[in-house]
């Protein structure tokens, strides 16, 4: 509710034009100033959000490399080549695979961790801070150190596995093994963060539901399944969406895993879509890289659409 400015002594307008201009000023103030307040954000968004989007689409329709000043218009040729490009579909497969392997176990683990913390514990703050610590580390530092851990000859993980008789695994070389390694890095970073979000949601669930269930003889795990998870469904939806977005943006881990490799390994075994775009931009083939970017946008729209359909079906009833 707006507060009113103190009344000024009214001055009777002497001319019709003066009264008209005062009314106009007042109308402008009421109707137009909201837009003026929003304008800074809109301008920034147009400059840094909308214009690059449109410009990228424009560039993708050309044969555009940075090394020449002549850009030939080729229409949808870049897209046609892209759809037939094995490397593109390989990158898509890798992105989906790394996304699933990093997200699904991570969310299950996060829910379980939140469930463990959702009880009167001493040193609550300590646990929560510890959960969040991996998230504040530098991505590059994490990749470099985990690469050492996953090293083929002298890595810690292979050393531990050797106690159980498992031979040295070349984590970089295999498709599945490299996906597991990269997913481990992502999980290490994000599990705690998501656990805290789930914990916050869980603490909003009314206690008497649990009391009633305990009286009815439900075990802890049953309570988790039948009470907690349905009650925090909107949070789960939110976390799934943010994790999907994050999974499509994975670029630092594959680029630096083991050695610096824009192709995501010699066989492109762990090259994600973002890394594929990076590789093509680094080769200064801007037209093709822009086409890949727009295809990625299409994929994201499809993923968002699927998310929306799934949540609409089950999200109407929140209790």
């Amino acid at each position, binding site marked *: 509710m707006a507060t009113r400015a103190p009344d000024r002594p009214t001055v009777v307008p002497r001319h019709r034009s003066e009264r008209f201009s005062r009314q106009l000023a007042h109308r402008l103030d009421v109707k137009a100033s909201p837009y003026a307040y929003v304008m800074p954000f809109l301008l920034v968004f147009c400059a840094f959000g909308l214009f690059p989007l449109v410009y990228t689409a424009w560039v993708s329709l050309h044969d555009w490399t940075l090394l020449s000043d002549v850009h030939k218009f080729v229409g949808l040729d870049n897209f046609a080549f892209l759809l037939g490009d094995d490397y593109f579909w390989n990158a898509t497969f890798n992105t989906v695979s790394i996304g699933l392997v990093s997200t699904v176990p991570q969310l299950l683990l996060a829910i379980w961790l939140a469930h463990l913390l959702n009880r009167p514990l001493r040193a609550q703050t300590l646990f929560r801070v510890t959960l969040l610590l991996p998230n504040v580390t530098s991505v590059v530092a994490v990749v470099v150190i985990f690469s050492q851990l996953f090293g083929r*000859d002298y890595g810690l993980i292979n050393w531990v596995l050797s106690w159980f008789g498992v031979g040295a695994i070349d984590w970089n070389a295999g498709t599945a093994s490299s996906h597991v390694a990269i997913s481990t890095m992502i999980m290490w970073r994000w599990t705690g963060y998501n656990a805290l979000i789930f914990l916050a949601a869980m603490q909003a669930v009314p206690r008497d539901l649990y009391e009633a269930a305990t009286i009815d003889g439900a075990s802890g795990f049953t309570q988790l399944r039948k009470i907690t998870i349905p009650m925090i469904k909107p949070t789960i939806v939110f976390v799934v969406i943010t994790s999907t977005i994050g999974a499509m943006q994975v670029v630092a881990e594959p680029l630096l895993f083991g050695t610096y490799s*824009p192709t995501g390994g010699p066989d492109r*075994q762990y090259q994600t879509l973002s890394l594929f775009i990076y590789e093509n931009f680094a080769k200064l083939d801007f037209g093709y890289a822009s086409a890949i970017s727009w295809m990625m946008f299409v994929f994201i729209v499809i993923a968002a659409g699927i998310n929306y359909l799934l949540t609409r079906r089950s999200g109407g009833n929140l209790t």
Partner: protein
Amino acid sequence: MGKLRPGRIAPMLAAALLAASVAACGGGSDEPAASGQPAEKIKLTVGLFSDFHFAPLYEEFKKTHPNVEIVERRAQFNDHHKNLTTQLATGAGAADVVAVEAGYIATFTPLADKFYDLGQYGLGKRQADYLDWKWSQGLSPDGKLLGLGTDIGGTAMCYRTDLFKAAGLPTNRDEVSKLWPTWEDYARVGQQFMAAKVKNAKWFDGPGENFRAMVDQAPVGFYDEQNNLVAGTNPDVKKAWDLSVQMLQADESAKLAAFSPPWNTGLTKGSFATIVCPSWKTGSIKDAAPTTAGKWDVAAVPGGGGGNQGGTHLMAPKQGKHPKEAAELIDLLTSKDNQLKLFTDAGALPSIPALYDDPAITGFTNPFFNDAPTGKIFTDAAKALKPQHVGPKAGDVLTAFGNALQRVEQGKQQPDAAWQQALQDLDRIK
């Protein structure tokens, strides 16, 4: 702020006046240049892709140019060169002095309008110092001097004497050089080494370096003189490929990518017995594995020793605001005396042939490499060097073949399929 009491104003005013007078005395920028002190402070940025050991040379430059501050920045090798292309295209961000390696120099010399012509700043007089081919590598197509050379990469073969001894091979460097006059002999000696089953040791670090060394020795490499990409049809390239694959299939490779952290560990732990050594790599080995001092030695490279691997030019992009100082810095960093210093310090082989007979070099022995006369070894290699034309996208071509060899090494693809895919990757290189 509270009210200013009169008792407080006077000391504050006095302090302000004092500060102002000190500043006025210390400026002195209106003095005539008769004292030899140039007025403005200048900052020069130097963009490199590794540690060139230039730090003492910057100090030397400061003595004659006290107003110049030098800031060095380093980026990863491929990124450094790609960034330079972007910086030149967008017109901002390039350093005042950039190092461009031999694999990329052909990408930048055609861009004569983006770099200062160092000839206009008096560096044309250095031509008499240089090797002909190194000098012309730094010229634009119409003859402007865009880059001045620092070092070249005469090639030898570094080996671990302790591992050779354990395998029953000779350790004296002359005898070792006689073991492998050709690359086929090198592969055969490798099998001998592997048969001796020295613990945790393979013959060489990774397939890419040998492949590159073999291609470098051929008269024509990936590109011909007209910059056509001939890698797919050049029989020397195919021969290098076949021999590299043969060595991989004999399990002679330690499967380490050069300059990666596992490669550093492998160097320290003796995971491989030999490694192709351009002169600058002796410095890299020393930096990466300091605890292995004295266990290395240097022998001749197989195949007649004609290859040049690497080496750098220093160029001055036109984005820099101080071309005169940049040119003077380039002149100093590449001067005859400093190239000598950089050889003894970092293993950078000079590109000035007059130094090849300098006793300071020919008599130089490297204690890290078992007192090998690296001066004589590399200057002999440099004299025998027949330069090969390097095309504009040689780096990308090498990556395509390197990836293909790694796929064979990791068992992901059969050699013929890997070769075909490499050729397809070459088609994508515009």
